[in-house]
């Protein structure tokens, strides 16, 4: 599940470094010079090279450069040849046979065979079995990858010959074709124990440091943690080679500097830019901006925990367990306003938990709500939440309702959402106590007793990111996930039943009907209010590389999508292969910054600088005059 990446949490979550080469010129002098280097920038910091420890989008991007999945994602996210070049299912849909590409080699020249795929899948199966068997609850690394195989109901895996991998599943499904599990080189990894691989905080963790050996188009060859990571072309790559000889992923602490670097030509691609920067870049002739639609959402999650009171924790009112109450609150949220202000207009108002990104699965709600404070008040009255003398809403126990609204400090923009929500709900007589919580503490607060916590919150604002298949997004509202991924403790047997049905459903129309019902159910009962689907704002230079192709073609982005396909499309546009070094080399006028309605904002700050200089001179001059006098005064006094 790539989804349970806490999205923007991840964006801000920054990582730390590992190897000391920072100021050593030697490290970089070694390689030949006229290589074509693609440089990408992100504000996420790569933390790990061991795929099992992946959490951030950039972690996933990097392991799909290093490795192939059993099946990669195609241009429109369809299953495409990866480590296997063809595949088929048995008639009952329970047995999948994958043909591993003949003659394929790892980047170090070792033959890549079904034994490697078997090793990798078995590793995940072993970890899951260990988890099931032991009371200790074992997880492989960060715990995000096992779900891809367990949700596909994987039972066993075997390799009858070097080019065949056979996977048996418990139920017929197609999720296996979307499994985000990289195939690892057995000859490198098998000398490490499951604990070394899966336990990052262990005493001898396997970190998979460069040079990495993989079958992907580029392998990590150099890493300066906290700064950048360099990938070098895989000479043995089986697929179409991209134009870049090397790929550098640079981490930026501030998007401002990343955008400057893009404008000056120091980097070619940047992910995660701010709305105002996006607008400003639109005027630059050498830069293309991309507004990708998001495969994820930001939500209001209610603490609906209803398995009895929690000593010392739990929600402040039982009203949150009432779907009618939550529904009424949802009528008092102007999602378009939030999109306009919080996202600067870059995104869509949210509806269901399956974003429109999933064109095949998204279904607009049958009973949509609108922004209507009067309607919200009517519904609260009807649901039995009267107002007291001073206009405050009372819950069924007669207690004044004041809701604690919080969000992680890594998602600063929710502070804006919270201000609006507080304003809107005050018109319902519902009090809001809005505050930010440190992310680690919030993760703790969100744990229910089943997960060893106290579920000590009312409402949290956060977000999720999805996979090409909606299963992982649907998963977070399952009753079974209470104590794990669930942060609303929504517990609806019908929903859970539908989840299992859709997972095992091969007929698209039937599966759509099931997923549609799930979307309607959760929209109406509102354990989450999906605030918005925030856009992915990327930008790239068009003067050095060509062939930028969005994945998916409709609404996607060229890089930082699903796998390495975007890198392999790139072509060389530069007549002179040497990379541009001059920061001022940008041709054409620099973009005029300004908001959608702000117009030109006059980027020329020279008058201002002159003004400040003048001010300094005036102050200094004034002091000079006064000093002379005061010196006189002082000497008089003495």
């Amino acid at each position, binding site marked *: 599940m790539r989804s349970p990446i806490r999205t923007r949490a991840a964006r801000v979550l920054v990582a730390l470094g590992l190897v000391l080469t920072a100021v050593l010129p030697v490290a970089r002098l070694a390689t030949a010079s006229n290589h074509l280097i693609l440089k990408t920038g992100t504000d996420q910091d790569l933390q790990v090279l061991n795929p099992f420890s992946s959490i951030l989008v950039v972690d996933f991007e990097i392991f799909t450069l290093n490795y192939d999945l059993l099946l990669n994602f195609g241009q429109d996210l369809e299953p495409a040849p990866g480590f296997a070049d063809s595949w088929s299912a048995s008639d009952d849909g329970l047995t999948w046979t994958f043909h591993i590409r003949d003659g394929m080699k790892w980047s170090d020249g070792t033959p890549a065979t079904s034994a490697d795929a078997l090793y990798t899948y078995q590793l995940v199966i072993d970890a899951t079995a260990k988890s099931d068997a032991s009371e200790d609850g074992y997880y492989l690394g960060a715990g995000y990858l096992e779900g891809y195989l367990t949700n596909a109901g994987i039972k066993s895996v075997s390799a009858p010959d070097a080019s065949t991998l056979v996977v048996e599943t418990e139920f017929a499904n197609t999720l296996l074709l979307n499994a985000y599990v990289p195939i690892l080189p057995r000859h490198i990894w098998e000398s490490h124990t499951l604990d070394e691989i899966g336990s990052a905080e262990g005493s001898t963790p396997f970190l998979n440091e460069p040079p990495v050996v993989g079958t992907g188009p580029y392998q990590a060859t150099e890493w300066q943690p906290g700064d950048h990571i360099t990938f070098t072309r895989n000479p043995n790559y089986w697929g179409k080679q991209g134009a870049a000889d090397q790929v550098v992923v640079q981490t930026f602490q501030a998007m*401002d500097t990343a955008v400057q670097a893009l404008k000056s030509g120091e980097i070619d691609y940047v992910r995660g830019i701010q*709305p*105002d*920067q996006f607008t400003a870049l639109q005027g630059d002739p050498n830069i293309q901006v991309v507004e990708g639609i998001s495969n994820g959402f930001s939500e209001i999650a209610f603490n609906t925990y209803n398995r009895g009171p929690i000593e010392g924790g739990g929600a402040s009112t039982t009203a949150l367990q009432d779907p009618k109450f939550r529904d009424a609150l949802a009528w008092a949220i102007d999602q378009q306003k939030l999109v306009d*202000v919080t996202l600067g207009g870059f995104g869509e108002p949210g509806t269901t938990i399956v974003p429109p990104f999933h064109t095949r699965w998204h279904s607009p709600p049958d009973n949509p709500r609108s922004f209507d404070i009067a309607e919200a008040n009517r519904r609260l009255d009807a649901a039995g939440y009267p107002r007291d003398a001073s206009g405050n809403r009372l819950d069924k126990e007669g207690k004044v309702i004041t809701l604690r609204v919080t969000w992680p400090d890594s998602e600063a923009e929710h502070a804006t959402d919270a201000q609006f929500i507080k304003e809107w709900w005050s018109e319902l007589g519902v009090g809001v106590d809005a505050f930010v919580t440190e992310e680690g503490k919030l993760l703790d607060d969100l744990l229910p007793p089943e997960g060893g916590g106290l579920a000590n919150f009312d409402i949290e604002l956060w977000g999720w990111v999805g996979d090409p298949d909606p299963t992982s997004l649907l998963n977070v509202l399952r009753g079974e996930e209470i104590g794990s991924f669930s942060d609303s403790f929504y517990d609806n047997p019908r929903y859970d039943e539908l989840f299992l049905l859709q997972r095992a459903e091969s007929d698209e129309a039937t599966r759509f009907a099931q997923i549609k019902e799930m979307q309607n159910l959760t929209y109406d009962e509102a354990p989450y209010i999906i605030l918005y689907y925030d856009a992915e704002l990327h930008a790239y230079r068009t003067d050095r590389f060509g062939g930028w192709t969005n994945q998916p073609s409709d609404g996607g982005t060229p890089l930082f999508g699903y796998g390495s396909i975007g890198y392999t499309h790139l072509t060389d546009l530069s007549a002179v292969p040497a990379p541009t070094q001059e920061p001022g080399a940008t041709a054409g006028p620099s973009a005029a910054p300004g908001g959608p309605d702000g117009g030109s*904002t006059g*980027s020329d700050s020279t008058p201002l600088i002159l003004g400040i200089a003048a001010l300094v001179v005036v102050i200094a001059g004034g002091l000079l005059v006064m000093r002379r*006098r*005061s010196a006189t*005064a002082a000497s008089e006094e003495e």
Partner: protein
Amino acid sequence: MTATPGPVAGATRGRRSSGAGDFVRRFSRRREGMVGLAILTFFAILAAIPEVLVGPLQTAVTSIGPRLSPPIDGFPLGTDELGRDIVNLTVHGARISMTIGLLATVVTVAIGVLVGIVSGFVGGRIDAVLMRITDFFLVIPTFVLALILTPIIRDVVGSATTEVFGIRMTLIVIVVVIGITSWSSTARIIRSQTLSIKERAFVDRARVVGAGPGYIMRVHILPNVINLIVANAVLVFAGAVLTETTLSFVGLGDPFQPSWGQLLEAARSVGAPGLGAWWYFVPPGLGIILVVFAFTLFGSALDDLLNPRRGGRR
């Protein structure tokens, strides 16, 4: 080690005040001090009545301006990314920054004076222990300690929206942290002054008539170091404003109560310098520079007057 860490001025000796009128006359001859005072008065007025001057603090909800606009009609200093008027934000920022500075100064000076007087008056082992602790805080990088302490204390006290003196709990934590980490130079100064006062005849007389140490410290010592406390407090204030600004800038501020430092942080995270959006960070930036500058001028002038070793030197 004898030097004190106050980069500009650190008084080591004080003297009893002369008459108030005399003091005012002598201070008014200190032109830098007067300039400092004038600037401070200006910002004090901003901080005292922001609502009167620019209306209530604009929020994302109440803002009406265009997004990140340069100065235009109705918005003489432009707007931020939420369409809020920078004039409004800067004036309200003055209140928040200066209130935090003031509260932090009170905490800092209170701790410093307490430690200084007790240490100087009681002497002996207590003095030795207190001074070891003082030296410790003088020498360690207290800002880094503040960086660690702030989130920890914040999470220990909880993040509820209780307000103290109109300041949210998150910022009160910053006040306390500044207090905890920056009292040591005050303690040093007050202690040395206490040592000299302790030897004066009137203290001996009080002791002879049977006054307890608490009484002597309160009634005889404290009034005699008050000048020094005032002079020192002014300089502490400048430092507190700078520390608060820096803490906010690295992300420990509170977006619901934007101080100048918080505004600068917001400007940076929006990318204002790169977008050429000078109007976003120059007003709060100038506010900080002017306030710290003014306090330093004012404080140095006070220090000159109240400190016999420096009097007339400059």
